[in-house]
């Protein structure tokens, strides 16, 4: 239902129903004065009081709201993802009703975009799932969080802006590609896997488990022994890490090459292959753990954006 017609002032917007209500109040007020009918005066008094108090209650409805944002650690261009808005109503005798939420953010090119959602009833804390499918890689920043409500009767829409300092990075879209360099200089992923299976890689130590560790690198023994997940770290024989030089990757433009690099990085991590990425003058080494993967992807996402 679209009710809004115009803005009275910043925090308040009168709806069509509100305009009708105001006209009704004026009409009945004039009728009451003209006819001297005290019951009409009673009705007009009720209309006026309700109008004023609904403003007060609408303000209380949006008072003491706190918000924070959480999001998945990996968001890729063109892939369906989400943001989670945690909205909390602080100590207040009244819960929050009919909250319309608009998360306004800036994409890496500074364009204002928004995600919208609704929470009908808020007491304590609730999470709002905001579907998010980015089109561009880079750093996204929340500009503001707009919360509005038609509470209590849909006569006015009260709004409030919450300061939310949040930013997140969207990685380039992983696009399947073949890196010719890999065939010349490196054994294939399959060969490498064979090597690992044959025990050519030398076991070095056990490390703390981090999410995203390939299954074959998990030390099942230690799980059985101490009920703790550990990750096996191998010394990769004599092979130097796979070097991904952005300029040499296939692709017509930088974006395509970055997409290719993203794909290759993900593949390498999936298979447990160590890699190094050369971005301009920067060389990024993978230490094989999840954090280094995110670090490399982040650099790919932000490359050329400064």
């Amino acid at each position, binding site marked *: 239902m679209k009710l809004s017609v115009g803005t009275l002032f910043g925090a308040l917007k009168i709806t069509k129903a509100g305009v009708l209500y105001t006209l009704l109040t004026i009409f009945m007020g004039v009728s009451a004065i003209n006819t001297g009918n005290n019951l009409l005066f*009673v009705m007009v008094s009720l209309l006026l009081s309700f109008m004023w*108090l609904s403003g007060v209650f609408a303000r209380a409805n949006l008072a003491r709201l706190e918000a924070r944002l959480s999001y998945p650690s990996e968001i890729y261009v063109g892939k369906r993802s989400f943001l989670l808005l945690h909205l909390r109503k602080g*100590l207040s005798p009244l819960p929050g009703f009919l909250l319309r939420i608009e998360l306004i953010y800036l994409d890496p090119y500074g364009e204002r975009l928004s995600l919208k959602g609704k929470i009908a009833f808020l007491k304590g804390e609730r999470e709002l799932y905001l579907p998010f499918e980015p089109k561009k890689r880079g750093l996204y920043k929340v500009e503001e969080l707009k919360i509005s409500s038609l509470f209590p009767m*849909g006569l006015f829409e009260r709004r409030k802006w919450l300061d939310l300092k949040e930013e997140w990075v969207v990685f380039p879209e992983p696009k399947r590609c073949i890196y010719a360099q890999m065939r010349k200089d490196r054994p294939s992923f399959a060969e490498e896997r064979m090597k690992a299976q044959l025990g050519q890689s030398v076991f070095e130590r056990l490390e703390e488990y981090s999410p995203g560790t390939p299954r074959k690198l998990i030390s099942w023994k230690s799980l059985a022994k101490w009920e703790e997940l550990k990750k096996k770290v191998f010394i990769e024989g004599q092979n130097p890490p796979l070097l991904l030089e952005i300029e040499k990757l296939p692709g017509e433009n930088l974006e395509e090459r970055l997409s290719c690099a993203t794909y290759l990085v993900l593949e390498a991590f999936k298979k447990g292959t160590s890699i190094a990425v050369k971005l301009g003058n920067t060389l990024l080494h993978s230490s094989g753990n999840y954090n280094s993967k995110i670090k490399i992807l982040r650099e790919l996402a932000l490359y050329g954006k400064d």
Partner: protein
Amino acid sequence: MERTKLERLLLGLSLLIPFILAFQVLSKEIYFLTLGLTLLAFFLEGKGVFLPRFFINASGVLFIIFFLLTVNLSNFLENALRTLFLLLTLKLLERKRLRDFFQIYLLEFLIFAGFSYFFTSFWFFLLLFVQIVLISYALFLHLYMEEGEAKFLRGEELRHIILTLGLLLSFTFLLSSLFFLGLPRLSSPLFNLFTKEEKKAQSGFTDKIRLGEISEIQESSRVILRFIIESGNLTHPESLYFRVMTYDYFDGKTWQKGMTIPDISPFKGVPMRGKRATIYLEEDLEGYLPVPEYTSQVRSNVRIRGLFDGTYALAEVTSYPLKYEVSFVEGHPMDEEINLEAYLQVPEVKESIRELAQRLRGKTQEETLRNILAYYQRENFKYSLKDLPLGAAPLERFLFETKRGNCEYFAGATALLLRMNEVPARLVGGFKGAIYQKRGNYYLVLERFAHAWVEAYIGGKWIRVDPSPTSTFQAFPREGGLLSKLRLYADIINFYYTKFILDYDLKKQKKLLHLLGKTFSQVIQKKEYRGQERDGSFSSLRKGLIFILLLVIFVGLFLKYRGLFKFLGRCITHPEVRLYYAFERELKKRGYIREPWEGIFDLVDKIGEPELREGARRFAEIYSSYYYKEKAFDKEALEELKSWLKRLKSLR
């Protein structure tokens, strides 16, 4: 509850009161048409059938055109209400979205505005509030389900909705009383929507007295009027006569007004110092105003005609309850003599009545009257409301056969017998008796007090003759029943409602403002105003004003120190908050104050004394383990917090 079911239930409930009230206002054809269509709409909605929107809109436009073509000042209200009801019914027949629900409730509200011209009792006022509560909840729930895209409502949500909206409505009702007192008013209305045609809630009083007719209304407990005596009380309220109209023409069965009574008060120029009373007339009595006998002066906001027969009538159409003030002296007969021949008119009567009249003739007019009254006693006439003599010759049957009748028979027969003996006589219709309501210090006249008596022109004066046997005339049937007692109590509410709400006008508003200014200045100057209040109503008004003033101050303080009130509220509802603030207070006494940006542990870290710090840390740990993990503080946790707080206090 499921959305569609809930929406239908809300809609059905909101239509209940309008349809109950409409029964008394709409013509029966329109009423049953709209009721039928409404039931049909609900039935069709249950089957998922709706009328197309263009049909609804086209019909709506037609109804409005019809209204505009047929409306005039004399039928405005009835016509408007009929159109509103038809539009409402139409809206019910279509598929309803949020917008349509809004429109339906708007129509219901307008219908209530229309009703306010027809119903004036406190019960309507109460129903209006019930309807507003219903509409508000219904509107909110429709909006809630639409905005929240809810198909069901959970119990917790519903509970919070009921509480929050209940709070909003309670404040609305309180605040509206201030608006009501302060809204601008005019000294007299610009438009008058009351017309003769709209007298729906009319009492059984008519400009004719047909024998046997009053008996129907003598069972009714409907309130006709309430009055307040300005100073002192009536010694015998049960024998107070309220004069409404006189009847001079008798056709053998019916007494009615035959001649036009000129607009000259019989008391004109006669200085009469008597009691003063304020009367609130609830219903229209053919435009006549009941006045206590004998009233010399009537004052009101509307124009009033004082008539030569001692009655008073409205010179313009007005709304009810109508307030007017009268000055009257009990037992002061009138001496107007105009067209006395008209009061000697006699219809064709049977020979037997002629013979009786002849037999009762005395040497003087007084003696004739005494003979007539003695005849009733001698022949053992009885007062009765049942088995009254009707038919072709009711008076003859009353006088010679049944010898039972109500006041109309006694008065009618007496007036006739007097006239047949050349004594000018007329019938007076009105009310006899009043109930004194101690709690409101007012008198109440009910419809069943309707009475008829005779006035005889003897010795140059009109003398009241009430031939009905007083011992048997029961204006006050024994009322020991709980119901009648409750009814009398309920009337006190109605009385105050009439006095303070329906009768509130510019004059009272000015008085209120004046008093408000005076009270305010007295409060400022701290004047002693004991002993200054002579007038009881003035004093109670002042008390009311002081109360309102205090209320305004309280609301002002509330708005100014909202934080404090909120804190108090939270302390009441959340014991842990209370304990936390006690904890902060305790540390403040020791010189450790929490800055706004600091957390509870920052505060603890500032403490120098190791023992106090440890105790405080323990308190902070328990508190934060519940508060930040969003666990509800259970009894155990609260007890523990209490005991740590006690320990901290003991370290002083």
